[in-house]
Every structure is written in structure tokens, then in C-alpha cells.
């Protein structure tokens, strides 16, 4: 990418080609995925650092495959969406592709060391993306993002180191391999030490109140494409890590800490929704609703109940697609109307009907209207939470109801009413902004009506997690 500095126009075609090729490759893998086995597939294992038991092991299973596909799809769509980036375009596209590499690596890594390295690699492109192409306070936001999430991943490194040593005691040899460490089964006292560290690390990434404060700043100041990837993909890294590393390896400790996780999740859901109500900046509103929706994921995982976990994993993909749509829609408004502040917008429906249609559909999807994916996810989670925790589900439902409130109110103020003076000549949505949103919309509706197509790929990991608990009980 760097070498294309002489011909910036070429950069976007190269990026499109690359990400399209990756997407095609992942579709081929999807077709080749065998639903009958529960093991990791597409396994590849090369020795990297045998002295310490590190090897380059990658593979996909039912938990990581949907997320892997989500990433390749979103990155491809984001490259398309950014068609009009002119400032330092080659660098921009290079960073997008590097980000994709990092995230795909995180989802497919089966060696803890590799996992950590890819996790860290993700931070750098995002730092640059926010810092160079972002909004007014981009400098502050990018540094905050980098340091905040870096500290969290360092805590994760400490926990990984601890697990590495403990596993060696049991296995008799040193290894960083995730499947092998998972099979060890640590005793409760050790788990109780490691789990909080991992919980902290992944909760920063998820993000969970009260360690969520980097997200609103990062989202607001980031360029739209980076926001899409941040919300759609990076947040899923947090929940993926939570399941893969924290829950599957330390289930007993996870059970002991359920009350804490539930409290944090409820806090995220309710606080996120309330905070979203008060926002004037549309992007910040969507950012807080992201926090709220990821709270759904967290409480779903914490319930250890079949429906809830299924809903949580489904919500991961659903939120990925839906929040991508939301941020793209918000980006359309920003590019065309020049501002994201709801108080300065109004009556856009007259000028940008297509854009507003897409936006309202995205809002509906996020609210959890039946027919879209989000409904199935949230309903499953609520069902599971009721089975596990009884009346607490009311608080979860409160979050969902509030979502309806702030979205409808925001949309009413933005799309209807009188048009402010400065916005009389905004153009409607461009083709390269419409196409990605359409693809996402179609997928959301399709999976909303035919969830089995997706669930078939996810069910194995859900059963794995739930069965861990039932063996304890």
C-alpha cells in the first residue's frame, strides 16, 4: 500500500481487490465447513518458537467462524464505503487491511501467544485511523484508546503467563496452545485469581461500564469506516475473548463471579440506554447504544443457560451487522449534512429520502423489531435470563424498551420537522454508501427470518459452554 503513494487512485482498487479476495476465500471456507464435527477445522500448525512452546496454530470452530465471516464481510464493505477518501488514501487503505489482518488473526489464533500478538497488532492501525482521519479531538481520543486498551491487554498477558505455567505443571510440558490449555482444567483457587484479570481485560474491550469511557470518545472522533470496524468487529474481539479464554478455561470461577458479571452487564444495559437518551451527537448516541447492546451479550454469557448463550452469540453477529449499518447511516448524514448534532438537523427526509429510509431500518433493527436479527437475539437472551435469574429480566427489558425510545425520538428530530437553513442543498446517498448498507440490511432481515442458517454454525460452541456448567452442577 505504501508504494502506491504515487498513484493514490489505484489504492482503493487494490484494497477492494484484496478484501474481496479475502471475502471470497472465507466464503469458500464456509462452504467447506463440516457441520457434523465439533472440533476445530481448517487447522494449520507450524512451529514458531519451540523453546517456549509457541507455535503458529490457527483454526476455526463454531464460535470463531461466524465472527471470522463477519470480519471479512465488514472489511470489504468498509473499503467500498470509503470510496471517496482522498487524503493519504494509500496509507488509509493499508491501515484498513492491516486492521483486518489483526482481527482475523485474533479470531483464528489457537495459540495464546499468537492471540496476544494479533490482539496488540489491532491497536496500531486503529490508533492511526482515529488520529489522522478523525474529528476535532482525534488526538486525545486516539491516545486514550491506545493506552486504555493497551493496559487491558497487558493485564491479559499476565493472566496468559499464569495459565501457561499452571498448565505446564499438569501437562508436563510447556505450551501456549489454546486447546491444550483448555483441556487442563485448573483448580478453583487458581481460577479465582486468573478470572478477574481476564474479566477486566475483556470488559475494557467489550466495553462494559465502568471501563467503557474510551468508547464514546473513540467512536465520535473516528472516521466513519473506523467506527464501523470498531463497533462491528473490535468489540466482538472482547466478547470472543471472554468466551474462549475466560469462560471456557475457567468455568468454575466464572460461576462464582456470576453476580459481578450480571451487575456489570445490567449496569451497561441500563446506563448505556439512559446515556443514549441525553446525547445530542448522533454518533455518540449510537456509541452508547452499542454499550447497551454489548451488555446483552455479557448477561447472556453470564447466565450459562442455553437460550441465553445462544442469544448472546447470535447477538454478537447481529450487533456487528446492525451497528455497521447504524454507523454507516450516521456517516451519510455527517458527510452530506455536515453535522451530526441532532439539534442542528431536521427535516432530512425531504432531502435525503433514501438515506433516511436506510437509517430508520437500521434503527428498527437495533431496537429489536421482529423480522430483524436483533429481535431474536434479544428475546433469546431475555428468555435465558428469566430462566436463570428470574425478575432481573425486567431490567434487561428496560434497556430494550429505552432503545425504542431514544431511537424513535432521535429519528423524529432528524428526519422530520423543518429543514435548517444551511442544509437546503444536501445530496442524497451515494451509490458506494448505499450498496454496503443494502447488503447489511438484506443479511439482517435474512438471518432474522431464517436464523437457522446461522445458528447451525454456532450451536456447537454454545453447547460446549453450557455443558461445562452442567458438569459442575
Amino acid at each position, binding site marked *: 500500500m*505504501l508504494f502506491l*503513494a504515487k498513484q493514490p487512485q489505484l489504492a482503493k482498487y487494490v484494497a477492494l481487490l484484496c478484501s474481496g479476495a479475502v471475502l471470497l476465500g472465507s466464503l469458500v471456507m464456509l462452504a467447506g465447513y463440516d457441520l457434523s464435527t465439533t472440533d476445530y477445522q481448517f487447522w494449520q500448525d507450524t512451529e*514458531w*518458537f*519451540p*523453546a*517456549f512452546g509457541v507455535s503458529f496454530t490457527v483454526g476455526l470452530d463454531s464460535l470463531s467462524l461466524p465472527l471470522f465471516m463477519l470480519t471479512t464481510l465488514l472489511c470489504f464493505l468498509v473499503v467500498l464505503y470509503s470510496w471517496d477518501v482522498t487524503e493519504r488514501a494509500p496509507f488509509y487503505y493499508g491501515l484498513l487491511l492491516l486492521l483486518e489482518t489483526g482481527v482475523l488473526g485474533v479470531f483464528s489464533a489457537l495459540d495464546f501467544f499468537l492471540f*496476544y*500478538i494479533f490482539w*496488540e*497488532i489491532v*491497536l*496500531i492501525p486503529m*490508533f*492511526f485511523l482515529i*488520529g*489522522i482521519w478523525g474529528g476535532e479531538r*482525534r*488526538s486525545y481520543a*486516539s*491516545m486514550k484508546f*491506545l*493506552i486504555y486498551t*493497551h*493496559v487491558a491487554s*497487558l*493485564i491479559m*498477558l*499476565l493472566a496468559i*503467563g*499464569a495459565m*501457561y*505455567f499452571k498448565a505446564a505443571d499438569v501437562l508436563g510440558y510447556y505450551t501456549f496452545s489454546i486447546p491444550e490449555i483448555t483441556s487442563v482444567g485448573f483448580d478453583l483457587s487458581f481460577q479465582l485469581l486468573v478470572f478477574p484479570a481476564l474479566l477486566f481485560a475483556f470488559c475494557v474491550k467489550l466495553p462494559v461500564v465502568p471501563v467503557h469511557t474510551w468508547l464514546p470518545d473513540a467512536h465520535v472522533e473516528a472516521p466513519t469506516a473506523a467506527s464501523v470496524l470498531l463497533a462491528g468487529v473490535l468489540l466482538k474481539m472482547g466478547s470472543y475473548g471472554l468466551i474462549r479464554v475466560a469462560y471456557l478455561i475457567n468455568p468454575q470461577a466464572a460461576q462464582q463471579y456470576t453476580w459481578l458479571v450480571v451487575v456489570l452487564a445490567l449496569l451497561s444495559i441500563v446506563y448505556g440506554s439512559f446515556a443514549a437518551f441525553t446525547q445530542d451527537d448522533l454518533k455518540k448516541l449510537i456509541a452508547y447504544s452499542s454499550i447497551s447492546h454489548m451488555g446483552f451479550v455479557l448477561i447472556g454469557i453470564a447466565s450459562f443457560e442455553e437460550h441465553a448463550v445462544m442469544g448472546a452469540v447470535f447477538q454478537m453477529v447481529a450487533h456487528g451487522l446492525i451497528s455497521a449499518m447504524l454507523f454507516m447511516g450516521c456517516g451519510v448524514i455527517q458527510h452530506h449534512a455536515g453535522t451530526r448534532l441532532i439539534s442542528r438537523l431536521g427535516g432530512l427526509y425531504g432531502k435525503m429520502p433514501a438515506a433516511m429510509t436506510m437509517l430508520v431500518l437500521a434503527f428498527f433493527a437495533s431496537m429489536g423489531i421482529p423480522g430483524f436479527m436483533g429481535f431474536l437475539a434479544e428475546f433469546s437472551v431475555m428468555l435465558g435470563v428469566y430462566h436463570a435469574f428470574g425478575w432481573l429480566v425486567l431490567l434487561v427489558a428496560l434497556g430494550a424498551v429505552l432503545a425504542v425510545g431514544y431511537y424513535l425520538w432521535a429519528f423524529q428530530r432528524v428526519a422530520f420537522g423543518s429543514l435548517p437553513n444551511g442544509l437546503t442543498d444536501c445530496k442524497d446517498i451515494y451509490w458506494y454508501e448505499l450498496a454496503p448498507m443494502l447488503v447489511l440490511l438484506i443479511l439482517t432481515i435474512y438471518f432474522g427470518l431464517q436464523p437457522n442458517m446461522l445458528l447451525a454454525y454456532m450451536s456447537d460452541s454454545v453447547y460446549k459452554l453450557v455443558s461445562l456448567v452442567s458438569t459442575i452442577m
Partner: protein
Amino acid sequence: MNSLTLEQLILLLPELLLLLMAIFVMLLPRRAHKMAWLLASSGLAVDLAMCLSLWNTNVVIMDGAYSIDNFAVFIKVLLLGLALLNVIGSHDFTDKVYRAKEYYALLLTAMLGLLIIPSATDFITMLVAFELVSIATYVLPMAELDNPHGGEAALKYFLSGAFASALILYGLSLLYGFTGTLNLVACSEVMFMLGVHPVLVLALVLLLAGFGYKMALVPFHWWAADTYTGSSSPTTGFLSGVTQKGAFVVALKIIVVYAAVLSPLASLLLGLLCVVTMTVGNVLALKQQDVKRMIAYSSVAHAGNIGVGFVVGGSGVVGSFVHILAHALMAIACFFVLQLVLERKGGTSLRHFRGLGKQMPALAAAMMLLLLSFGGVPPLLGFWGKMLMVVSAVGLGGWYTVLALILVLNSALSLVYYAAVIREMYMRPAEQELLPATGSGKSYLLAIWLAVALLLGLGLLPNLLTEICTGAASFVSPWMPW
């Protein structure tokens, strides 16, 4: 029977060659700058090759006074390689040096001392060699005529170094008086028999204090900031990358001697020093507006990092060796970058780094990689040393986990100011225009890219380096009785 046999002379060839080269360079005519550089760099290169061939020799010659084992060879090769990198890069700097031939002769003499240190088997040899290094390098900061701060830097370096030497000698005299021997092995045997004694503790404290000065550990670090900032950058690269690492080698040998008796106490003392050093170094670096001073303080912090590995022991020492190499490469390359920025933009403060991403993209990219390596971001080499130390510390449990946590948090803290420089380079528009290129600076770029390539390459394939370091670490105390 005590005379030097031919075999022993052959084993001593690297040191002898350096000595001869130094004398030869001194005999050159006054104006022969380029010739001096050529002789110095070729001498170092030949020496490097000779030392490489000594791997796995493991003999003790001269009646037990000089040991050539894998640890010694590793350190020699390491330091020679780093010095060679620095000298190669200094090619364009030679014209600015007031008396280039003395500069290179002194450099070679310092290298001679650095070669003797890891092989020494008794305190006096080690100390004389170390004094040789120190005295040879005291004058180096003043080398460049145009640099107004060189004199102050050299003076502070000299005064603190002399004071440190006095502390070391005092501690050593206490040790000798108490144990009755100067040989490292014999000394540790006597201590093993005698057990803990206040005089021994006092001697350890004095020795650590003296070498703490040389390693720039807090609270003996104050000279480092001024000296590193005031010297011309290539010289700082040599001081920070090569001579400071020599001090670490000495400190390691002393710790090993004491390891028999005072292991918990020594490691506690050193651990405390390292924790304070890392924190103070990073905090002070945060507040700097001048990038050169910032990197100087970060060198102090990294000295603390390396010390942590010594404290942990076992695999931690391997991690320290890896980090010694990594930090030296980073420091040498970084100071060359600073020299280039000074020449092309007129200064080294944060303002001068603005817009470097657009004005000198290749240099900015190299600097970004260096800074990320400083901050410990994988897969660059700067990460691996820290990782090895952290993992081995966590494996030991107890308060070592706290140590690992502090190391990790300091890493994150240091990333703040490294990221600030990256931010200035890429996300701020340029304030100063580039001064016209004078044609010099190619050698700096060569050294910089060589170092970056090594950091990246060794970082992606760390196996070879770790095996070598493990092999070296196993020889740190092979001849100790326990």
C-alpha cells in the same frame, strides 16, 4: 610455566588486535579522519569474526585469570556488533569530530576494556578493565566542535564516574578485607562458608551504588539525562548502547558472586532499585518536550527493565540478555535518527518532529518502528525481552508477580510518550521546513535501517536469539560451587 603459550595468545587475539588498532590509529596523521574511521570499523569487524569463532571454546587461561566461556563470548560478540553498528553509522559524523583519530582510538580502547570484563575472573581485572572503559569514554561527549553542550556533558559524566569508581573501590576493599581473596569464585566460596554478615551487606550496597551510577539506576541516574542529551547523538548511541551495557555485565557478575549467601536480600535490593528506576524514568520522560532528553530518560527506565530480569533469575536472565540487545539496537538507531532530525530540521524537540511523516516518510517509518519496539509492542524485538521476563516472573509467583505487574504497567506508561512522538510525526502538520540535504546522513540511514531490520527480523523469529542467550546464561555461573 607461567608464561603465555602460543595457544593462549591465539585465544587472546581479539583483545590484542584491538590494542594494536588503537595504537595504530593514534599514530595516524592528524587529518586522516576517514582512515581512522576505516581502521576502527574494519578492526571491529575482524574482531567480531574472531570472537564468533570462539563460541563453545570454554577454557580458562592464564592460570585461571581469564575465562573464555560462552557467556563471555556472547557478551563480546554482542558489544562488538553494537559498536560496529555505531561506527558504521558514524561515518558521516566523522567530519564533525574535532579530533577524529583520537575519538576512534578511544573508542577502540573502550572496546578493549569491554572485551576483558566478561572474561575476568577476579575483581581487579574486572575493575581495571571497567575503569579503562570509563576513562576512555569520558572525553567522547566533547568530540564534536559545534556542540555547545558537549563540555558540560563530559564533565558531568567524568565527575559522576569518578565518584562511582570511588564507591566501587571502597566496597571492594571491604569485600577483600573480609574474604581475603579477590578471585570471584574463591570470594563466593568464602561467603558461602561465612554466611550473612553486616560488612558483606555494606560492601554489596556500596558496589551496587557504584555500579548503579554506571547503569543509570535511580537514584544514581541524574548524570545520564544531561550527558546523553548534551553529547552528540552518535556518541550517545555508543554510551547508551554499549558502555552502559558493560556496566550491566559487571553488575551481573557481582550479583552472581553474592548469590550464594545474600540471594533474597540482594534480589530484594536490586528489585526495589529497578522498580523505582522504571517508574521514575518513565514519569520523567513523560514530561519532556525535547525528544533527545525523553529518550535519555527512557534509557534510564529500560535500565530498570533489564535489572528486573537479573532479579528474577533463570529465564529472566535470558530475557535480560535479549532486552540488552534489543535496547542497545533501539538506542543506537534512535540516536542516529535524532542526529538526522537535528541536521535536517534544526532541532530535536517535539515541534521539530511535526510533519515528519510527510517530509521524510522513510525516516518517520523507521522511527515509528523503533518507538513501537521501545514501547514493547509485538512482534518487534523490544517486546520479547519483556515477555520473557514477565512470564518467568509470573512463574515464580509471590512478590515476583507484583514485579511483573509493575514492569507491565511501566511498559504501558512508556507507550504514552512514545505514541506522542508518533503522533507528532504523523498527525501534525510540519512547522519547520526541511533544511537542504547536505549529502551526509546516508550512513545514519544505513545504521538505522540495519537496526530496524534486526529488530523486526529477530522479533519475528526469536528462536535463534533465545537459544543463544540461553546458552550464554547457563555459563554465567558455571564454576560456582553450588
